[in-house]
């Protein structure tokens, strides 16, 4: 499709074209307008294509290869390691820690989505009401989302310490409990702690997306429902939710994708402990790859499980984003 112009273009012509604004349009190179624009479009895209190939395509392909390799600290300096067949996958699905991490990732993800959606939707509804200070309230909700994730991990670690943590302090001051709860030292509670931290983290995203969807519900529709005698609950269930359903779907889908890849938060908060009770696929894969054994192959196999989990969503995401995909009409038409 891309062909160079057959006629040589004179240097003088090229210089004349470079001058802006060019008055004399006759001195352009003999490249038809359409070809010229195609060429320019491609040139504008070159950096992005190169970047995507190097930082997305290459690592993904390489990760798939790595999943079939027998790696050790000795092989890390090389680009490839001996072929291992499906040993790494066999390991990942038989190793209790890896299996636990996979199951836990699901629990963590669905727990997070449930909490984030309920709280986020409640706040979105709240912010749609008129009350003094709602603009500032809405802007402050973004805070958790702006912070570096490792900082969020640290904040929750500080708050949930057994000794001197704000949460235990509050519960004891109010009189709900009479002893310090071992939030981070009890394997069962530690999972709930990372779940709470992640829900906190996801509230801004859910609130803002659902809020902006609620703004798009036509006022007339709501008023008509009121006139027809629908109560608040009926209005929500029968009018508002169906209208904003597409946004709810996208939000949950993206929430799923964001949650299965949570890493920093858990590393900062529990480091996967105690006794690996908060290891997710991401943190456990990191341990396998970057631990003392340098078993990058096993880590990559687990990564690929995660990748499949995340990419399962992509057809659905593309379907939901089809509006943006269809808009490809350019200015050169």
């Amino acid at each position, binding site marked *: 499709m891309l062909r160079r112009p057959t006629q040589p273009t004179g240097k003088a012509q090229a210089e004349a074209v470079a001058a802006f604004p060019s008055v004399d349009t006759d001195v352009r190179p003999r490249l038809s307008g359409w070809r010229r624009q195609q060429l320019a479009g491609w040139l*504008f895209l070159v950096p992005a294509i190169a970047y995507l190939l190097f930082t997305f395509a290459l690592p993904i392909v390489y990760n798939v290869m790595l999943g079939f390799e027998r790696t050790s600290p000795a092989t890390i300096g090389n680009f490839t390691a001996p072929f291992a067949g499906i040993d790494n996958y066999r390991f990942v699905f038989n190793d209790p820690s890896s299996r636990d991490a996979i199951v836990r990732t699901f629990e963590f993800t669905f727990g997070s989505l449930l909490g984030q959606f309920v709280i986020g939707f409640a706040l979105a509804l709240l912010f749609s009401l008129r009350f003094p200070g709602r603009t500032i309230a809405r802007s402050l909700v973004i805070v958790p989302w702006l912070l570096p994730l490792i900082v969020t991990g640290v904040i929750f670690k500080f708050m949930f310490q057994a000794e001197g943590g704000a949460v235990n302090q509050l519960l004891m001051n109010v009189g709900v409990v009479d002893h310090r709860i071992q939030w981070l030292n009890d394997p069962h509670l530690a999972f709930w702690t990372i779940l709470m931290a992640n829900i906190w983290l996801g509230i801004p995203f859910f609130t803002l997306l659902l809020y902006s969807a609620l703004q798009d519900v036509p006022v007339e529709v709501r008023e008509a429902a009121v006139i027809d005698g629908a109560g608040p609950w009926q209005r929500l269930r029968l009018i508002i939710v169906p209208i904003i359903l597409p946004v709810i779907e996208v939000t949950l889908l993206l929430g799923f994708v964001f949650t299965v890849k949570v890493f920093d938060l858990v590393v900062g908060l529990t480091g996967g402990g105690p006794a690996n009770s908060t290891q997710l696929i991401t943190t456990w894969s990191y341990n396998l790859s970057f631990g003392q054994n340098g078993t990058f192959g096993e880590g990559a196999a687990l990564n690929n499980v995660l990748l499949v989990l995340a990419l399962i969503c992509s057809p659905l995401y*593309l379907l939901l984003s089809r509006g943006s995909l269809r808009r490809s009409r350019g200015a050169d038409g």
Partner: protein
Amino acid sequence: MSRRQRSRALRWLSTLAAVVALVVILFPVYAIVVGSFESTATLFSGTFYWLPHAATLDNYRTVFQIGSAGAQSTVSGSETKDVLTSLIVGLGTVFLALVVAVPAAYALSKYRLRVTLVIVSSLLVAQIVPSIVLATSLFIVFNWIHLVNTYPALILADGTYAIPFAILVLRAFFFSLPNELMYAARVDGATEWQTFRLIVIPLARSAVITVALFAFLAGWGDFIFALTILNGAGIEPITLGIYTYLGNYSTDWGAVMASAAIAMIPAGVTLAVAQRYIATGLTAGSVKG
């Protein structure tokens, strides 16, 4: 109750609910700021003080290594250097994201290219790919080409947070520019590059600011690539510094608090001066992009 009274009651109830929600949402941030001004003794006393108790700047002196304050920091490593490193990484990510994304978004919105659909789909999928997958592979690739522990490697990796998002947001913005602008420029004899540089970029300022802010926050806040690609030696951004202070066995809370508070500064500044750009980006990038 009259209708008017009821709507007033509802208004105050809403305000109250919003205040409660905000206290819960903002308390963690408050706790860390207060904690960063507490003395080591207070932090280890086993009691949390709701208001600053015997406020001191010792933690900040420790992390910035200003004199030898009373705090007993066991970890050495100046946070001043970490902050500089994070600034370089953040600005580098902004530069990379803009250089790659602005022309690409323009091409994907204003030129009719055969690859548009493929590239836009790839970008949507790229946003889904977990960073740990990229980090593991990129570490070995960078190791192989001797780029581990360098700024370019980290910035290239951090671009993966920013670039797909940036292209999609900018593309959505470019759709809002009338095509007549480009026609007019072409009729006036402008080259494609001149049209892009002199007409399109100046008009895209607000979208570019949004994208730049996101890229900066992504580069500044990145931990996963810093942990893997920097491999714990040499260059240390602030996120990695916090992790170091966190330690494996005992946590140096004073230093952690102060570093965490410093790491929150860009978020605070963004919220104070550029909040509208962030809110736009958050919604534009994920639904309308």
